[in-house]
C-alpha cells in the first residue's frame, strides 16, 4: 500500500537545493522588461497621456497607452472552466489597458524597456490627465441611489442578486414562544500574500505566443489570453513551472493577457512582466469583504423555527469570479443548520476597492465567521451549551442536498467535535473560565464548517491523464491539475503507484504543465485536485495496466486474467510466481523486432459527483482587556477529508490553513483611503499576516471516513483548514469576556470599541 503513507514530497529535494525553477528563474536575462502605469485615481476616466518625456528615456523600447489599444477585446478573468452556454459565461469586463478607471491602480498604460530602471523611470515620466469621479468602498453604500457608478452596464452597482426560499419565513416567525436573535457580521478585504508575486514572460516562436506564467490554471489562461487578444486559442501556449503559492489569486488571469499583448507590440520579442509586492496587494485579487445580516427565530427547545440571511459581498472594481463566491457562502446557510423556513438573499456589489476573486475557501471563511459567530450568539441568548446546540441542529448524517446531491454519509461533525473536545479538555476549561474577573481572561470557543470538494454541478469537472511506460518499467504521469505547493504531485505519484502496482520511486510526475504537452485539465482550484485527478489517474492507470498485461500475455503466454503487477513485477497471481520485471517487459516492448509497442495510455474522466468535507476548530484565547488584545494560546483543527493519501502532507496543509485563518481572525485587513480608494497598507510590513511569533503550536487531527463517491476515498482538504478558525477565535473571545465582536480582524481598534460599549473599559 502506497496510499496512506507519509512519503516525502516528490519535489522536496529540488526545493531544498534551489534546483526547483520558478518563472523568474527560467527567464532569459536578455528579456525586455514591462512595467505597468497604474491609475492614481479610484474612479473616473483617463483624458490624456503625454508620453513625450517618457519616450526620451534611454532604454525605452515601446510605450503603449490605453488609447493605443484599438481592438477592444473585452475578456473575463475568472479561472472557471469555459461554458459554451452564454448564460453561464463569466462577465467579460476587462481590457488589457483601460481608459475607464474603476479602482486606484487600474491599468492605463505600459512601458517595455531594455531594463527595469528604464521601464520604471518611463512609467513615472508619463503625464496623465484624468476626469475624476467620487469613489465608493462599501457594498451597502454602493447600492444606494446616489452612489457613484462604476460600470455603465450595472446602474445600481449590483453585479448579481440571487435568493433561496424554503417554506414560509414570514408565517413561521409568527409561531408562539419564539426567541429572536439578530446580528450583523463583517469580514475584511484580505490578500493571499503568496511569497512569489505574480510573474510571467512571453515570446513568439513559430508564429505562436509562448507564455510562461506563475498560474494555477494554465489551460484556462490559454483560453483567456486568446479572448483578450482576439487570437485563435491554438496559437497560444502556456507553460506553468513551479509556483510560489497561489491560494486563488493565481486562479485568475492577472497580467498574462497584458504581457502577451505587449509581446505582440514589440515584434514578438521576449517580454517579462514581474509585478511588485505593492502591485500584488493593490492590483491583483483579494478575498471578498462581506457583510452578513442574520435573523434566527428559536423555539424554547432550542430548534430553529425560521431563519433569514442577507449577504452583501464587496466585489471591488471588476467582476472576476463575481457572484459565485457570495452564492456559495449563502448556499451553506440552509445546509449547515437545516431549517424548514428560510429566506436568503445575496448581493454582489461593485465598489472601487481592489478586484475580489477566489481565495482559499471561496466565501466559506466569511460565511463560517458569520454563521458560527451567530450560532454562539444564539447559544448565549438561549442559555445553551454551544456543543450540545450544534449536536442537535447541525446537518445530520444522511442529509442529502437537493441541488448538488451531496450526501453526509457519516457522523463526521460529532466525530470531529469529539476529538476537539478531548484534545482541548473543553468542558473542564469551559468550567474553569466561568466567572472570571480581572484584566486578563481566558476563553475557549469552537466552530464547524462544511465544504464542497469540487465545483460540480455548478460547473464542469473534468480531468485528463497521460501515462507513459519507460524502458526501465517506470512510469511518467501527467495531469492538468497543477502542483501549487499543496503537494498534489506527491499524491498523484502515490495514487499512480497504487493503481499500477509500482514502487513509489518508479513513478515520475511531470510537474510542469504545458498546454502543448499536458492533457487538458482545468488546474488547481476549489479543493478538487486529489478528488478529480484521482478519477483520471485510476482510469488511465487501469488502461495502462491492461496494455502492459496484454503484452505480458504475449511474452509469457499466461492468461491475462491470471496476471497482475506487484511491486514493479509481472506476477502470476495463481501461484505468486514473478514472471518478469516490468523493466524487462518495457524494454522488450519498445525494441522488439516482432511487435514493437510504445506502451502509453491517456484518458479523460468527467466527474459528475461532488463531496462534502467537514471539520471543526477549537481555540483557547487569552484576552488582555486594557490592551484590547486577543492571543491564541492553544488551537486545533479536526477534519474529515475522507481517506488521507499522505498524512504528513495533509497535516502540513492544515497548519497552513490554520495560520491563514488566524491572520483572518486577528490581524489581516486591507485599509483604504476613503477619499481616493488607495490601498494604505500595500506591503508586508503594514499588512499583518501571521509570522512565526503570532500563533502557538498548530495542532491538526483527522477523522478518516472514506468518501464513497471518490476514486481513492479522499475529498477536500486544500481550503477547509482556513474556514472555521476566525469564528472559533471570536467565540473564544466571547467566552472570555462575554462580549460578542462581530467584525474581524479582532485587532485592538475593533476590540476597544466593543469593550467600551460593553463597559469593560
Amino acid at each position, binding site marked *: 500500500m502506497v496510499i496512506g503513507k507519509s512519503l516525502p514530497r516528490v519535489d522536496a529535494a*529540488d526545493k*531544498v537545493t534551489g534546483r526547483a525553477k520558478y518563472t523568474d528563474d527560467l527567464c532569459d536575462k536578455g528579456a525586455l522588461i514591462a512595467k505597468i502605469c497604474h491609475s492614481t485615481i479610484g474612479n473616473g476616466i483617463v483624458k490624456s497621456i503625454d508620453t513625450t518625456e517618457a519616450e526620451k528615456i534611454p532604454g525605452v523600447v515601446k510605450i503603449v497607452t490605453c488609447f493605443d489599444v484599438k481592438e477592444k477585446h473585452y475578456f473575463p478573468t475568472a479561472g472557471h472552466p469555459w461554458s459554451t452556454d452564454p448564460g453561464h459565461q463569466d462577465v467579460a469586463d476587462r481590457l488589457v489597458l483601460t481608459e475607464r478607471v474603476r479602482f486606484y491602480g487600474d491599468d492605463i498604460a505600459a512601458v517595455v524597456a531594455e531594463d527595469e530602471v528604464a521601464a520604471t523611470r518611463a512609467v513615472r515620466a508619463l503625464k496623465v490627465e484624468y476626469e475624476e469621479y467620487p469613489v465608493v468602498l462599501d457594498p451597502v453604500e454602493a447600492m444606494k441611489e446616489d452612489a457613484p457608478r462604476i460600470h455603465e452596464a450595472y446602474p445600481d452597482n449590483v453585479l448579481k442578486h440571487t435568493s433561496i426560499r424554503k417554506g414560509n419565513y414570514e408565517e413561521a416567525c409568527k409561531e408562539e414562544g419564539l426567541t429572536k436573535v439578530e446580528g450583523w457580521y463583517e469580514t475584511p478585504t484580505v490578500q493571499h*500574500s503568496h511569497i512569489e508575486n505574480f510573474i510571467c514572460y512571453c515570446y513568439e516562436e513559430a508564429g505562436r505566443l509562448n507564455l510562461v506564467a506563475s498560474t494555477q490554471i494554465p489551460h484556462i489562461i490559454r483560453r483567456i489570453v486568446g479572448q483578450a487578444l482576439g487570437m485563435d486559442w491554438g496559437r497560444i501556449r502556456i507553460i506553468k513551472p513551479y509556483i510560489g503559492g497561489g491560494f486563488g489569486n493565481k486562479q485568475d488571469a492577472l497580467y498574462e493577457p497584458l504581457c502577451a499583448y505587449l509581446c505582440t507590440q514589440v515584434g514578438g520579442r521576449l517580454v517579462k512582466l514581474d509585478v511588485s509586492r505593492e502591485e500584488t496587494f493593490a492590483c491583483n485579487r483579494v478575498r471578498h469583504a462581506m457583510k452578513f445580516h442574520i435573523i434566527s427565530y428559536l423555539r424554547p427547545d432550542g430548534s430553529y423555527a425560521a431563519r433569514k440571511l442577507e449577504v452583501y459581498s464587496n466585489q471591488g472594481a471588476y467582476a472576476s469570479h463575481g457572484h459565485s463566491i457570495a452564492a456559495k457562502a449563502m448556499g451553506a446557510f440552509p445546509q449547515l443548520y437545516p431549517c424548514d423556513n428560510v429566506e436568503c438573499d445575496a448581493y454582489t456589489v461593485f465598489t472601487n476597492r481592489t478586484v475580489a476573486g477566489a481565495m482559499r475557501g471561496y466565501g466559506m471563511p466569511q460565511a463560517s465567521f458569520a454563521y458560527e459567530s451567530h450560532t454562539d450568539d444564539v447559544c448565549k441568548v438561549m442559555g445553551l451549551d454551544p456543543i450540545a446546540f450544534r449536536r442537535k441542529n447541525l446537518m445530520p448524517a444522511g442529509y442529502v442536498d437537493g441541488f448538488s446531491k451531496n450526501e453526509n454519509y457519516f457522523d463526521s461533525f460529532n466525530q470531529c467535535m469529539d476529538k476537539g473536545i478531548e484534545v482541548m479538555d473543553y468542558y473542564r476549561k469551559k468550567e474553569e473560565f466561568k466567572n472570571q474577573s480581572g484584566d486578563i481572561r481566558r476563553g475557549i470557543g469552537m466552530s464547524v464548517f462544511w465544504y464542497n470538494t469540487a465545483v460540480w454541478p455548478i460547473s464542469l469537472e473534468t480531468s485528463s491523464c497521460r501515462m507513459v511506460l519507460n524502458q526501465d518499467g517506470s512510469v511518467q504521469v501527467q495531469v492538468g491539475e497543477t502542483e501549487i505547493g499543496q503537494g498534489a504531485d506527491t499524491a498523484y505519484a502515490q495514487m499512480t503507484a497504487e493503481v499500477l502496482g509500482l514502487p513509489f520511486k518508479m513513478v515520475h510526475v511531470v510537474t510542469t504543465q504545458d498546454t502543448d504537452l499536458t492533457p487538458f485539465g482545468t488546474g488547481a482550484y476549489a479543493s478538487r485536485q486529489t478528488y478529480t485527478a484521482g478519477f483520471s489517474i485510476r482510469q488511465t492507470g487501469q488502461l495502462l495496466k491492461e496494455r502492459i498485461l496484454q503484452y505480458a500475455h504475449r511474452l509469457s503466454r499466461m492468461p491475462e486474467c491470471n496476471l497482475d503487477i506487484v511491486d514493479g513485477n509481472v506476477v502470476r497471481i495463481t501461484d505468486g510466481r514473478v514472471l518478469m520485471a516490468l523493466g524487462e517487459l518495457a524494454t522488450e516492448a519498445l525494441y522488439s523486432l516482432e511487435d514493437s509497442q510504445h506502451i502509453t495510455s491517456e484518458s479523460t474522466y468527467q466527474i459528475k459527483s461532488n463531496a462534502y468535507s467537514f471539520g471543526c476548530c477549537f481555540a483557547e484565547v487569552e484576552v488582555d482587556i486594557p490592551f484590547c488584545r486577543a492571543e491564541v494560546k492553544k488551537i486545533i483543527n479536526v477534519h474529515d477529508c475522507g481517506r488521507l493519501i499522505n498524512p504528513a502532507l495533509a497535516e502540513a*496543509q492544515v497548519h497552513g490553513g490554520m495560520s491563514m485563518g488566524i491572520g483572518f481572525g486577528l490581524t489581516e485587513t486591507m485599509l483604504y483611503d476613503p477619499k481616493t480608494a488607495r490601498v494604505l497598507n500595500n506591503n508586508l510590513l503594514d499588512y499583518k499576516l501571521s509570522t512565526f511569533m503570532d500563533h502557538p503550536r498548530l495542532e491538526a487531527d483527522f477523522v478518516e471516513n472514506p468518501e464513497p463517491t471518490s476514486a481513492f476515498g479522499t475529498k477536500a482538504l486544500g481550503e477547509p483548514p482556513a474556514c472555521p478558525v476566525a469564528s472559533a477565535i471570536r467565540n473564544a473571545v466571547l467566552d472570555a469576556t462575554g462580549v460578542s465582536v462581530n467584525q474581524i480582524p479582532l485587532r485592538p481598534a475593533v476590540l476597544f470599541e466593543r469593550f467600551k460599549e460593553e463597559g469593560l473599559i
Partner: protein
Amino acid sequence: MEGKQYQLVTCTINGKETQTMVDVRASLTDMLRNDYRMTSVKKGCEVGECGACTVLIDGEAYNSCIYLAVWAEGKRITTVEGLLGPNGELSDIQQAFIDEAAVQCGFCTPGFLMTALEILDSGIEYSDEELRKLLSGHLCRCTGYENIFRAVKKTMLQRLGRI
C-alpha cells in the same frame, strides 16, 4: 550609458572566488541571481520584509535585497547552492526540511534554510521562544511555520547531541 556606474566586485560565493562588474545600484539579490544564476535567492518583496532572499554574508544572515552588491566586496557569501556536501549529499538541515514536511511551495524555503544555518552554526541551544523569534524575519504562507520549526529544532538538538 547615461546614469550608470559600474564597479568591480570581488567576493567568495559558496567557496569560490569570483569577480564581476556590477551596476552600483544593484542589490546583492540582483548580482547573485543575474550574474551568478544563484536562483535559490528569491525575490518576494525587495524591501527586506519577507526574508526569501536571505543569504549568509561572512556567516551572518542578511536580506540580500536590501544589501548593495558593491558592499559584498571581500565578503564570503553562502547561498543554498553551497549547502551540498562534496559528493552532492544534502546537509542535515536540508534533509530535516524534507523529513519534517517543512516544504510546500518552496519559495520561502531557501531563505529559511540560510537563517536556520546561522542558528545551527552558533552551536547554541535556543529555547522554543528564542527559535521562533530568530526565525520570525521570514514569512511563509503555506506551512504555518509549524514543520519548519520542527525541522530546525530537531537539527539543533541533533547537532548538540541531545537526540
